């Protein structure tokens, strides 16, 4: 019971796949994480750039953002449940709270570490100041934005899983917890395997490919 054999985990996986429960749980978790992550990206990347470029914003919001980063986002769950109720919005809030800040901070660091020569050169050549953002800062800091995005994805997953473990309403985390409730460790392991598989898939196929692409564009490949 404590250490189910790989064969039992495999047959549990097949059975869960056949009755559709696994696919449903995966889809629901994916939907939550994709939505939360998109929101984090859309807000986090511009926030990071502004934090790096505008002194006033860094002075005011900067320490707040750092403070939030040290707070594991699951700490928000009790409040989120009261604010939004027992529904998807609460878990979305936790996911966004987890990934937005880490994305913003990674982007901020990336932009800050850019050589000022790029910006000065662009200004010297008469680039309008708003275009500095879209045509110099953004492309030049793409590698660090990508790092931030990858980090944010990890945080989003973690936040989602811890939320689903504590919070009862569908998803992979709940399925894992159900395994625990039923003292069915093969179900727990099968869900863990699916989570790892998804992690590997996104890491290799999405972020890995994007990083390779960016490295090649920046002439960093093949060194």
């Amino acid at each position, binding site marked *: 019971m404590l250490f189910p054999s790989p064969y039992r985990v495999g047959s549990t996986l097949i059975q869960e796949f056949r009755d559709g429960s696994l*696919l449903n749980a995966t889809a629901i978790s994916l939907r939550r994480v994709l939505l939360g992550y998109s929101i984090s990206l859309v807000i986090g990347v511009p926030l990071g750039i502004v934090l790096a470029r505008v002194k006033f914003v860094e002075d005011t919001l900067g320490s707040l953002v750092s403070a939030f980063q040290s707070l594991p986002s699951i700490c928000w769950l009790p409040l989120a*449940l*009261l604010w939004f109720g027992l529904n998807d919005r609460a878990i979305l809030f936790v996911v966004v709270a987890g990934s937005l800040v880490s994305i913003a901070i990674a982007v901020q660091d990336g932009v800050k570490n850019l050589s000022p020569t790029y910006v000065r050169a662009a200004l010297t050549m008469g680039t309008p100041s708003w275009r500095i953002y879209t045509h110099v800062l953004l492309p030049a800091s793409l590698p660090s934005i990508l790092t931030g995005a990858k980090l944010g994805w990890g945080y989003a997953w973690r936040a989602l899983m811890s939320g689903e473990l504590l919070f009862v309403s569908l998803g992979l985390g709940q399925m894992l917890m159900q395994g625990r409730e039923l*003292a069915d460790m093969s179900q727990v392991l099968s869900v863990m395997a699916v989570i790892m598989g998804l992690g590997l898939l996104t890491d290799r196929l999405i972020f890995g490919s994007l990083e390779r692409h960016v490295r090649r564009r920046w002439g960093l490949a093949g060194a």
Partner: protein
Amino acid sequence: MATERQKYRHRPFKVSRDLITAGATSLGLVIISIAFGGAPDTHRAGDHRLPLRLAYFPNLTHAPALVGISRGEFQRQASHYRIEPKVVNAGPEAMEALLAGEVDIAYVGPSPAINTYLKSGGKSLEIIAGACSGGAELMGRGDENLHSVADLDGKRVAVPQLGGTQDVSLRRFLSLNGLAPQDRGGSVEIVPVKNSDMLALFLQKQIDAAWVPEPWASRLQVEAGAKVAVDERDLWPNHEFTTTVLVASTQFARAHPDAIQAILNAHSNSVHWLKEHPEEGKDAVNAALKALVGKGLAREVLTEAWKRVTFTVDPNRASILAMANAARQAGYITGKFDLSHAFLAKTVVASDLRRSR
């Protein structure tokens, strides 16, 4: 010159194979997330009836809710409302949802109900009926010789949750037997352990006893060879103590007394059906559990557990007040202690329940 500028403004964007892989995989994930898992909101278009959100646990002691939903009893009685079942796993969670306005009526243990009632200054909820009585035992490990609470001296006892109903009961009966938990300088070690983890701890001899609700007590007996040391019913007057009550959010109850009445009727009908048809009742409960958590209870466990619970509509005020007092003595309830408005006026329940029979 213009072409030169063009060249620098739009660097030719090459689509690499890596970019295609990343895009295609992301698209795949998005498609999976949309294609499966059903619609996130189950609200049916065209149904303009007011929703009535009913929370309960996938648990034996919530059997009146399980069969009330599966047999359509709630919907039949409250036909002017759209019954929305909300399955939750623990009392605090159900109460959070009730406070957030996500749940109107909930089946819940008396401890979380009383706690929430007191924390909100008596404004959030009222207890409208009882649902289940009995169904908690002190289980001793097979090789330990435990026959009473007094035998717990120097033992390690598991409870599902610190501050939960069983923990409060344990502390109450320890002090009645002249014992005290270690955190109060006594000799009995109380450890919080999730019900599902107790099985393994019993087998590994990590705990000597456990104060647990059904069906876990019966599972410990059947699967881990534990023995019933004390049936909590024997410690209470008339062998009755409340394990599940039906609570309604005060706001909802004020606005929709007709809905409360309908739910009470349905609840009462379900309780009577369960009493009159125990065999069909067990099947219905097990089918509901299987649908909700994927697995039903083993027949042996269910039969054993069924003997130890009583379904009832009586909230058994005296036992709830005794539990609340015990929780206060244990230090779990602090501040103002006024339960005068916690129960729906008694006459209403009694007379209306009689009518519904």
